[in-house]
C-alpha cells in the first residue's frame, strides 16, 4: 500500500513542473480523450495531507537511473532525454488511489515482460514517447511501481536465489490476499504492517539496483537498458516458470481490478486541469490550483448539481493575468492575447474561438525554435500543451477546439524526424491553414449551399442566438432572391441575437426579434427552425448555447422541422445524455444584474447570502428526437447518422 502512495510524493514536484513553467511538460492527451469516470478517491488526501511531504521512501528508482547511465554511452541521442525519463518514471507514483496500480501490473506488465518485443520497446522508449506518449511511459511507470506488492516480483527478480524470491513473492501475495479480503475499506486505510512492507520494499529495491548495475556493467548490450526486460529475456525458462505463478495470483489482482482502467486517466489528469475535471473533488482541485498560473479564488455559492464544473471567476482572474504578462515567458504573446480575449469575452462562438486559437498557435510555431538537445516533435507538443492548459484556465475549451488541438498534435506527431526545423514548421503552418480553410470556412460554404435548398419562398425561419453558419445561410438565401422572413429569438444574459439581427436588417432581410419567453407564441407561424451548434455528439445530441434545447422542443411540439447547421469538425464521438455532467458555467453576476435597470436589481449583494445560488449555464444538450436534420459539410444527414460520419471520416480526414 504505502509503497504505492510513496511515489505520489515524488510525483508532485514533477507535476508542478508541468504547468506553464516547464518546457518539458509531458504530452497532454486529456483534451479530447475518451470520457473517463471521475475517479473517486477523496480519503487519500486525508491520509497524506500534503502531497509535498517528503516520504522517507522517496528514492528515485535506482534501477532506472543506472539503466539510463548504462545506456548513455551507447545511445547518444537518447542521452539528453534521460533526465526527463527519470522524472517520468516517478510519475505514476502520484496515484491517488493506491489500489489502482495492482491490476494493470499483473496483466499488462507481465505479458509484456514475457513477450520478446518488450526489450525492443524499452530501448526505443525515446522514440516511442514521441509517437505514443502513453505507451512507453505508462509501462515504465507501472513496472517500477508495482514490483514490491504484486506477484510480478517473481518475474523481475529471477536472478535472485530462488528461495528468497519464492518467499518474497509469496509474502506479497499473502498481503495482497489479505487486503483483498478486507476489501475496499482496508485498501484505503493504512495497513498495520506498513513498516515491514516498507522494509521489504527497500530490500528489494536495493537488490534490484545491484542486479541491474551488474547487468549493465556485465553485458553492455543495449538490451540491458531495461534490467527487467533483459533478465526476462536472458532467462526465458525462468520467466516461463514464473508465469504459472502469476496465473495463480491473477484472481487476487482481479479482485482489485476496480480501478484497473484508470491509471492512464490518472497520469493524464495531472498534466493539465482536464477540461472535464471534477471540480468537486477537493484533492484534485488543490493540485490544479497549485499549478495554475492564475490564482483562483473559491467561488462562494455553488449550485449543488453543478459543483463538479469549473466555477466561473472572471473578475478576479483578468487583472491578475494581465499583470503577469511579462512574467509568463513560456506562453507565447499571441496565445496570451487570445487567452485574454477569451477571458474578456471578446471572442465567442465556436468557429471564431477555434480560428483564433489556431492562428495564435501558428504565430507561436513561427517563432518557435527547438532548444538544443531536444526533438522538435516532443518539445513542440509540450509547448502546445502548456498553451492549451493556459487557454483552459482562461476559459474551458469547446469541443471544436479540442478537436482542432487533437488535429494539430497528430500532425506534429506525424512529422518525420528527418525534416529540418524550418521544413517541419512550414508543414505545420500550412496544415493549420488547410484545417482552417477546409474544415471551417469551406465547410460553412458547403453547409450554406445545402441548407439553402430547404428554404422556400414564403418561409418564416426561426433562429436562436447567433450562429455564424446560420447567418451565412440567411444572407446567402437573401442574395439568391428568396422571399422569406426571419424570426431572431434571443435570450438574456448575452443577447447575442442583437448583433445578428443588426447585420440581417442591414442586409435588408425582414426580421422579427423576440426573447425566448415568447418562443411558444411565435412558433405557430414559423416554417423552419435553423440552429447552430457547438458540437454534435455521436448519439445525435446537439450541444449548443443554452436555450437551444428549449427552442427545439417547442418547434418539435409544433411540428416545425428543426435543422442544425454544424461543421463536421465539431462532431465528437462522446455520448452525453444531459447537460449536467459536462457544461460550462458563466458569470453568475450576469444573470443577477440587469444593466441600466437599477430598480429591479434586487440581487445586488447576492454573493454575501449563503442560501442563494445562481446558475448561469452556457450550454445545453438537445436530444436527437427534437432534431429533424443535421446539415454538415458531408451533406444533410439524420441525427442517427452522426456516428457514421464520425467513424468514416474523422479518422482519415481529421486525425491523419
Amino acid at each position: 500500500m504505502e509503497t504505492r502512495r510513496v511515489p505520489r510524493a515524488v510525483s508532485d514536484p514533477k507535476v508542478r513542473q508541468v504547468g506553464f513553467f516547464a518546457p518539458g511538460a509531458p504530452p497532454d492527451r486529456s483534451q479530447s480523450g475518451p470520457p473517463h469516470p471521475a475517479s473517486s478517491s477523496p480519503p487519500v488526501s486525508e491520509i497524506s495531507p500534503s502531497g509535498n511531504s517528503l516520504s522517507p521512501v522517496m528514492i528515485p528508482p535506482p534501477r532506472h537511473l543506472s539503466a539510463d547511465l548504462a545506456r548513455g554511452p551507447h545511445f547518444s541521442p537518447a542521452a539528453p532525454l534521460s533526465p526527463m525519463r527519470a522524472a517520468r518514471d516517478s510519475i505514476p507514483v502520484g496515484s491517488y488511489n493506491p489500489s489502482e496500480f495492482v491490476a494493470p501490473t499483473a496483466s499488462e506488465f507481465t505479458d509484456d515482460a514475457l513477450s520478446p518485443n518488450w526489450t525492443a520497446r524499452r530501448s526505443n522508449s525515446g522514440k516511442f514517447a514521441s509517437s505514443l506518449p502513453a505507451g512507453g511511459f505508462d509501462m515504465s511507470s507501472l513496472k517500477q511501481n508495482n514490483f514490491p506488492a504484486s506477484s510480478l516480483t517473481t518475474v523481475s527478480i529471477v536472478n535472485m536465489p530462488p528461495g528468497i524470491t519464492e518467499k518474497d513473492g509469496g509474502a506479497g501475495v499473502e498481503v495482497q490476499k489479505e487486503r483483498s479480503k478486507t476489501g475496499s475499506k482496508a485498501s484505503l486505510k493504512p495497513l498495520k504492517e506498513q513498516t515491514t512492507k516498507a522494509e521489504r520494499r527497500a530490500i528489494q529495491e536495493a537488490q534490484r539496483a545491484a542486479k541491474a548495475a551488474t547487468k549493465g556493467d556485465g553485458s553492455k548490450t543495449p538490451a540491458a537498458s531495461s534490467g527487467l526486460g533483459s533478465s526476462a529475456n536472458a532467462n526465458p525458462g525462468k520467466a516461463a516458470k514464473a508465469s504459472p505463478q502469476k496465473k495463480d495470483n491473477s484472481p487476487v489482482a482481479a479482485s482489485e481490478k476496480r480501478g484497473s482502467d484508470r491509471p492512464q486517466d490518472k497520469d493524464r489528469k495531472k498534466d493539465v486541469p482536464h477540461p472535464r475535471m471534477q471540480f468537486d473533488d477537493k484533492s484534485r482541485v488543490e493540485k490544479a490550483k497549485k499549478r495554475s498560473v492564475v490564482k483562483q479564488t473559491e467561488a462562494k455559492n455553488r449550485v449543488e448539481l453543478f459543483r463538479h464544473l469549473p466555477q466561473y471567476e472572471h473578475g478576479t482572474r483578468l487583472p491578475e493575468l494581465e499583470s503577469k504578462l511579462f512574467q509568463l515567458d513560456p506562453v507565447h504573446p499571441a496565445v496570451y492575447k487570445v487567452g485574454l480575449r477569451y477571458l474578456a469575452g471578446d471572442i465567442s462562438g465556436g468557429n471564431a474561438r477555434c480560428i483564433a486559437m489556431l492562428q495564435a498557435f501558428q504565430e507561436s510555431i513561427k517563432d518557435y525554435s527547438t532548444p538544443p538537445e531536444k526533438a522538435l516533435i516532443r518539445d513542440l507538443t509540450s509547448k502546445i500543451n502548456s498553451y492549451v492548459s493556459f487557454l483552459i484556465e482562461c476559459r474551458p475549451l469547446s469541443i471544436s477546439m479540442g478537436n482542432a488541438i487533437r488535429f494539430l498534435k497528430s500532425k506534429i506527431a506525424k512529422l518525420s524526424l528527418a525534416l529540418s526545423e524550418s521544413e517541419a514548421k512550414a508543414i505545420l503552418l500550412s496544415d493549420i491553414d488547410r484545417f482552417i480553410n477546409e474544415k471551417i470556412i469551406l465547410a460553412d460554404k458547403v453547409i450554406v449551399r445545402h441548407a439553402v435548398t430547404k428554404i422556400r419562398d414564403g418561409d418564416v425561419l426561426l433562429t436562436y442566438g447567433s450562429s455564424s453558419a446560420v447567418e451565412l445561410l440567411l444572407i446567402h438565401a437573401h442574395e439568391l432572391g428568396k422571399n422569406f422572413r426571419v424570426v431572431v429569438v434571443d435570450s438574456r444574459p448575452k443577447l447575442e441575437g442583437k448583433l445578428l439581427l443588426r447585420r440581417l436588417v442591414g442586409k435588408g432581410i425582414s426580421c422579427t426579434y423576440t426573447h425566448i419567453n415568447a418562443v411558444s407564441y411565435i412558433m405557430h407561424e414559423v416554417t423552419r427552425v435553423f440552429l447552430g451548434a457547438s458540437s454534435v455528439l455521436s448519439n445525435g445530441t446537439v450541444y449548443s448555447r443554452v436555450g437551444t434545447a428549449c427552442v427545439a422542443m417547442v418547434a418539435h411540439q409544433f411540428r416545425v422541422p428543426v435543422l442544425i447547421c454544424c461543421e463536421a469538425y465539431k462532431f465528437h464521438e462522446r455520448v452525453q445524455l444531459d447537460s449536467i455532467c459536462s457544461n460550462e458555467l458563466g458569470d453568475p453576476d450576469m444573470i443577477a444584474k440587469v444593466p441600466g435597470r437599477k430598480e429591479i436589481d434586487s440581487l445586488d449583494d447576492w454573493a454575501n447570502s449563503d442560501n442563494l445560488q445562481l446558475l448561469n449555464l452556457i450550454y445545453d444538450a438537445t436530444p436527437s428526437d427534437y432534431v429533424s436534420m443535421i446539415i454538415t459539410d458531408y451533406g444533410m444527414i439524420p441525427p442517427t447518422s452522426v456516428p457514421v460520419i464520425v467513424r468514416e471520416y474523422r479518422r482519415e480526414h481529421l486525425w491523419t
Partner: protein
Amino acid sequence: MWYRSASFILDQQQNDGVAKPESRLLSPTAPPLSMAETPQQIPKISAYYQTRAAHHGVVTSDWLAQAQAAVGRQADEAVSDDSLSLKSGESPKAFSVIDEFNNWRKQPELAEAVAAIRALASVIRSSEANTMMELEIELKKASDSLKSWDTTSISLTAGCDLFMRYVTRTSALEYEDFNSAKSRLLERAEKFGEISYKARRIIAMLSQDFIFDGCTILVHGFSRVVLEVLRTAAQNRKLFRIFCTEGRPDRTGLRLSNELAKLDVPVKLLIDSAVAYSMDEVDMVFVGADGVVESGGIINMMGTYQIALVAKSMSKPVYVAAESYKFARLYPLDQKDMVPALRPIDFGVPIPSKVEVETSARDYTPPQYLTLLFTDLGVLTPSVVSDELIQLYL
C-alpha cells in the same frame, strides 16, 4: 450528384424555364396548376405513372381514357407520340440510350431502374471512347439524359446515380490498359444489373420470417416487390389474409387483389377511407416504395402516410419492401418538400371550375412511422438507410 438532387427545387425552376418547348411534352416539370384555372396549359402527367399504367394492363385502358378526358386532346397526342417527341428532342447519343431504355422498359416485370441500369450497361458496351475519361463523360451524359427523361421517378434517378457510383468507383480505373479497364467496368455494370434484377427475389426470401400463420396483412398500392413477397409466402404454404385498399385513383388495389385471388389467398377489399376502421384486425402493414430517402422515410403512393399514422397509433408494425436502387439522396422535411408527381383524378362527376383538385400522386412517410425496411441489403431499420447512403455516396 448530391448537390443536384438536394437542390431540386432550384433545378425545378431552371427546368421550367428550359423545358417549355413542345419537344418535351412529357417532361413533368410544371408546377401543380389547377387545370380548370388555366385550361390552355396542360397539366403534365408523370411519365413514371404512365410507365406503371402501361405495365399494369388492367388499369391502362380506362386510366388512359380518364387521363385523356381530364387533360384534353393534347395529352393523347403526347402519349401516342411518346417516342417520336423524345426522338426529335434528344441528341443522337442520348437518343440511343433512351431507345435502349425503352426497349428494356417494355418488359412488364422489369423495374424502371433496372431497365435504366441495363441501358447504361449497353452504353458502355457500345461506346467508342478511347480513354477512361471519355467513357465516363459519355456515361454521365447518358445517365443525365435518362434522368431528365423523367425527373419524377425517384428510382430511375437513384438507380442511375447508384450505377455511376458502383461502376466508376472502382480500382479498375487505375488499369493502364483501357480495354481491360473497360471490360472490368462492363463486368461490374452487368453485375450491378444482375443484383438489381435479383433484388426482388432476395427481399421475398428475407421477409418470409415476418409472415406468420394466421396473420392479417394490410397492403396499400400495387408494388411488384410486395406481390413477390406475398406470392412467395403463399408458395411456402403460409396461411394469411390480405386486406387490400382500393388505391384510388388508379385502382391499384383492385389489380393487386386480382393477382392475389389467382394465388388463392383470401383477400378483402377496403375503400381507402376504411383503413382506420379495419386496423384493429390487422397484424402488419406491408407497403412498397417509390423511393427511400435519406432520413429513412419513404416516398410512396398517396395514402401511405395516413396508413402509417393509423398503424402507428394502433401499434401495428409497418414494413416496407424496397430494392436498394430506390435509395435516393433526398431529404424531404415535409410533404411539400418534394418534386410533385401529378396524376389526373376522375371523380365521376364534372368538377366545377372554381374547385381545385389535389393531383399529387405520392406522399412522404417519415421514418418514425416505419418499423422495418426489407431491402436486398438485408432487413434494415430506417436509420440504417442513411448509413448506407453515406457509404455509397461519400
